[in-house]
């Protein structure tokens, strides 16, 4: 493969302490060198990066639902990874709640085969904690690890009992593999469909209190302390959970956490307006109230929160076009994440650009122990080129995802994706961003 030099642009590579004008030389699918005014050898393709664009290590979304196998009408590995690269992600970690559940090497290998065929974003499967995600006995975790799984979770449900969670955390210590937890105390959650607060109350929707999440997080953090296992709190939504995470970190428990863009952008007033009972604002955990949203923004700013992940949860139109309490939980997120992060975090002064790169790239790579997260010499040439000032109008009709369930349709945001490079190959180029690859 020939050499390509990305010339100009601002390189933001927090893992190497870089933030400034650098050239990036790619060779054979890897980063060859990053430096100022690199010499151009004969045969090197030079790509001029328009000023104002940002070159950073490839973004990694550690929480997506690719739906394959079993629910290909919602999404496939091919459409999901097309959505990922269009959203600036060079890698995604996909949840095991497929049909059949990814609780054995066969399913893991199937997903990886589909990912190789699609040949877009890297796909890191996440295995189930328990066989069939039933919460009864542990899945064959070592086998999952060998087949390529990077973490385990029973996402969609919490790990059913404290004892099973203890065993999962203990067992995974031998692989340095996190247990990702969907925190939800089931009896407290009941048959709730929205955040337990004023808006759900006024609309007659059954509530899910923030404590349903934080109680389970406290259990898991305590167990991480007991076992020295790694627990990662998925899609944290409640301020009480953030307090629990801070408490765990202060006690040196191996706890990390992620938030989704929709939880730090939206609040539960969306239940009533602009579209009352819009099923595209129904997700689990639910949109919380302003105090929670503000707490999450503070947690992003002060470093308590490790990761931004989308919880990309595609659902078919027919499934969402029903009564609110019958609709499935979840929204798509891969193609709105970067714009929301720029508009609501970076331009709003909540986090710096290097900090955003940590949240979207450095930390997910570290937590999952996968390649990426830096532009170090010899690292895979997985690079996201971002356009912080691009004016973007979100359009679900133009999205690559097979499903259109996003509440952000029509939103005008500042910041977007210019191009996505995986293994030195441009897999997505946004013609509107003025870049030619």
């Amino acid at each position, binding site marked *: 493969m020939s050499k390509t030099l990305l010339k100009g642009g601002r390189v933001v590579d927090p893992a190497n302490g870089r933030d400034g004008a650098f050239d990036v030389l790619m060779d054979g699918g890897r980063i060859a060198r990053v430096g100022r005014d690199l010499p151009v050898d004969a045969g090197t393709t030079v790509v001029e990066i328009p000023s104002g664009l940002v070159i950073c290590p490839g973004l990694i979304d550690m929480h997506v639902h690719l739906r394959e196998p079993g629910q290909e009408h919602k999404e496939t590995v091919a459409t999901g990874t097309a959505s990922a690269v269009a959203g600036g992600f060079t890698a995604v970690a996909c949840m095991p709640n497929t049909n059949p559940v990814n609780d054995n090497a066969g399913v893991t290998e199937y997903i990886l085969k589909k990912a190789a065929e699609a040949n877009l974003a890297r796909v890191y499967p996440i295995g189930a904690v328990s066989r069939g995600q039933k919460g009864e006995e542990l899945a064959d975790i070592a086998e999952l690890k060998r087949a390529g799984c990077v973490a385990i979770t029973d996402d969609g449900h919490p790990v059913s009992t404290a004892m099973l969670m203890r065993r999962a955390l203990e067992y995974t210590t031998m692989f340095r593999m996190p247990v990702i937890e969907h925190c939800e105390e089931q009896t407290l959650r009941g048959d709730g469909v929205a955040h337990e*607060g004023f808006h759900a*109350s006024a609309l*007659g929707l059954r509530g899910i209190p923030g404590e349903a999440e934080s109680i389970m997080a406290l259990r898991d953090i305590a167990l991480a302390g007991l076992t020295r296992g790694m627990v990662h709190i998925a899609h944290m939504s409640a301020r009480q959970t953030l307090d629990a995470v801070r408490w765990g970190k202060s006690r040196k428990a191996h706890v990390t956490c992620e938030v989704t863009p929709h939880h730090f952008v939206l609040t539960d007033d969306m239940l009533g307006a602009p579209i009352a009972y819009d099923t595209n604002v129904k997700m689990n955990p639910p949109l919380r109230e302003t105090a929670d949203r503000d707490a999450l923004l503070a947690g992003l700013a002060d470093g308590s929160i490790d990761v931004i992940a989308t919880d990309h949860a595609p659902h078919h139109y*027919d499934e969402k076009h*029903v*009564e*609110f*309490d019958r609709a499935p939980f979840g929204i798509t997120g891969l193609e709105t994440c970067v714009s929301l992060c720029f508009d609501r975090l970076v331009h709003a002064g909540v986090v710096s650009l290097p900090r955003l790169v940590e949240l979207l790239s450095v930390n997910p790579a570290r937590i999952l122990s996968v390649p990426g997260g830096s532009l170090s010499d010899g690292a895979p040439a997985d690079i996201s080129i971002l356009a912080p000032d691009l004016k973007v109008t979100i359009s679900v009709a133009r999205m690559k995802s097979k499903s259109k369930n996003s509440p952000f349709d029509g939103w005008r945001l500042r910041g977007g994706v210019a191009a996505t490079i995986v293994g030195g190959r441009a897999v997505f180029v946004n013609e509107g961003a003025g870049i030619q690859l």
Partner: protein
Amino acid sequence: MKKDLLGIGDLTPDEIYAILDTAEAMREIGQRTIKKVPTLRGKTVVNLFYEPSTRTRTSFEIAEKRLSADTLNIAVAQSSVLKGETLADTALNIEAMQPDFIVLRHASSGAGHLLSRICKSRIINAGDGTHEHPTQALLDAFTIREHKKRIEGLKVVIVGDLLHSRVLRSNVLLLTSLGAEVWACGPPTLVPIGLDRLGVRASTSIDEAVADADVIMMLRIQQERMHGAFVPSLREYFTTFGMTVERVARAKPDVIIMHPGPMNRGVEIASEVADGPYSVILEQVANGVAVRMAVLYMLAGETETEN
């Protein structure tokens, strides 16, 4: 008026008064020998009921017939919904037959909003989940105004299962928008969040709540709430929150007692109170027809431009 009546929030205070005034005229029709006017002749009303409801469906049907509308009742059993077509598809099929109104009763909050986005027909919410039951609140207001000649400044106490009550939500919105002082009373397990933001005083003391009340509105307490551990027993509920003659005596001498029905005698209300001189429970039923006629008539007119 908006195209649909999905909740009391769709109405301005002026529109509420216009409906109540129109209902006065409509009530006179019910006292005639020939209880029928040609107003909605040639119009089709579909009563689409996903929950069994003898009272509300009958009331709507009589109202429609008195206005000469052609009425069609579709009762859908919940069990068949689970395996059958979606609400959206049912709505599209009904819409294809070009009805002018769809009266919807549904177990899901917001079902009317979904229908409203699909249908050109005017939608009247006849009760959606635990959200709203606007015509019930309108007939309650009509009944209150008849007895008290006003609504503004009255102390209205609503007692019972506040959490699961669509009657509560509609009444709170209506009564507060017309300036009543609204109190809500029930066990803390059955009080929804944010009542104060709706301008309601919440109390767990029935004696405090009913003191000097002009109107006491009782809500049904459902047997199944025992299973959710909302209250320990029906007996304890009655001794703690049930409306007894002694408790009524704490209210104003001319207090009226209301209940949207169906009643649980001996659970939320003593028979002596339900059948007593203060009770206007059967008047509420009678007024329901006139108020629903008024709503049908008013909605048949101009609609605000939808955006």
